[in-house]
């Protein structure tokens, strides 16, 4: 069983996989450093996760169980399409339960449930270079990385404080990996930044359009940039999840038909697991327990 007839296992040809695999091995050896790779044209446009898909295709094996999330949800277009893509081209098992997955490809979230050492998290990255909005020339940003000169980013954060009174960056919040490389964690909310630090799971990042892969090995120091008098802090909500009553998860604000609003967990698997365990919020009744 090799998936789609006429295609290699997991879509990519073997030479491409080898090239990406070699780049990934260097990426884990140099945590946070962006390794260039020969990004291939994929059967979907840039911006839809072509980098993440190429990383997943290169590491995926027949025994893997794949979970794909988009903004925390298993059921949104991007997640459904990528899951179906690998189901068809590699015939691998898929799941929406975080704890069952061996590979989790994600767009813009880290699951709420703690990951373990046997899992790999693959991030889809639109802009791998954290300083790209401050310095557009790659020749310059490469030199800044070589010199570990990240003053530019600190000035940007300082200007936020001067202008707004606090650091206004709320997603793709820059981090320093293993005390050396400044890294863009992809547009995850800064709420997820603490989960990058000392994660038991290997974290791989793929940027298809920008042709870069990078990695955070397990148990690696990841610090969010801040200042002594303006320490890093994550988002907090007044509300709890309207479906599962969680007060510790990242909440999405949903506008209701009647004009009201409710806050629900962005991680659909976390919310569903809590509801199945009997937690209920204000907007639903307890789940029916089938006899």
């Amino acid at each position, binding site marked *: 069983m090799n998936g789609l007839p006429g295609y290699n*296992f997991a879509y990519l040809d073997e*030479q491409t996989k080898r*090239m990406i*695999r070699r780049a990934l*091995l260097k990426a*884990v050896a140099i945590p946070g450093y962006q390794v260039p790779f020969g990004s291939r044209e994929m059967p979907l446009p840039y911006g839809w996760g072509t980098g993440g898909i190429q990383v997943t295709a290169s590491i995926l094996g027949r025994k893997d169980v794949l979970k794909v999330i988009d903004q925390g949800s298993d059921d949104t277009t991007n997640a459904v399409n990528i899951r179906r893509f690998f189901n068809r081209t590699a015939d691998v098992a898929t799941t929406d339960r975080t704890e069952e997955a061996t590979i989790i490809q994600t767009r813009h979230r880290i699951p709420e449930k703690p990951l373990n050492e046997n899992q790999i998290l693959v991030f889809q990255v639109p802009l791998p270079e954290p300083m790209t909005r401050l310095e557009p020339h790659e020749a310059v940003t490469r030199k800044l990385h070589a010199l570990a000169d990240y003053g530019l980013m600190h000035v940007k954060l300082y200007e936020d404080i001067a202008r707004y009174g606090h650091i206004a960056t709320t997603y793709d919040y820059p981090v320093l990996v293993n005390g050396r490389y400044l890294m863009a964690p992809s547009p995850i909310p800064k709420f997820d930044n603490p989960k990058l630090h000392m994660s038991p799971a290997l974290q791989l990042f793929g940027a298809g359009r920008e042709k870069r892969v990078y990695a955070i090995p397990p148990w690696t120091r990841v610090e969010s940039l801040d200042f002594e008098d303006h320490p890093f802090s994550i988002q907090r909500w007044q509300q709890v999840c309207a479906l599962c009553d969680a007060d510790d998860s990242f909440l999405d604000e949903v506008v209701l038909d009647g004009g009201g609003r409710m806050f629900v967990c962005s991680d659909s698997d976390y919310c569903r697991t809590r509801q199945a365990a009997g937690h209920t919020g204000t907007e639903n009744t307890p789940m029916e327990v089938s006899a």
Partner: protein
Amino acid sequence: MNDPHSLLASPLLPGLDDPVHDSQQVFRTLLSALSSPARLHTLSDLPQSPPPLHAATGAALLALGDYETPVWLQTPSDAAAAWLRFHCGVPLVSEPKQAQFVLIDRPLTMPPLSAFAQGLAEYPDRSATLIMQVTGFVPDGPLFSGSGIASARRIGIDGLPHDFWRSWQDNRAIAPLGVDILFVSGCSVVGLPRSTDVQYNTASGGD
């Protein structure tokens, strides 16, 4: 290679049984070895490799090597050269600095780590990966810590030159430049990326 009968006398050994899936499994083990350094990983169902290649060395080169990856062999071997050229088409180079993958089969007489590609300040990934064949692994040895290691752990690597860990510290000192190492013995692999710190005492630091 000068004797045309030598190849006929020893027919070419087969490569990976199922190239697509076997190389994926080998790669995942190597990925795990480099992201969890100083931990013993074992490969299974490997094909026989021609001497001086250990089974895991051969599998790693088959899984990762192709026309883009120059390989340097410490001990030139016609059998290994023919096998590598046929199965993965790697160019074999005579200059250690040109190689992306380096096979060290006799660590005691190996060149210094600085003899291999160290990467560039702006492209530290352009450095060599050394596959070092050692005599074996034992539970007790130097203390390893760093990225990928939850709490410092020990592993002993047999068959290294007595000053090896001192030269590793020189390799650490130029981080993020430097080489990465895969120690191999038979079907076992232990990864040592440039990010790993080693604490040793001179008594246990060598052979």
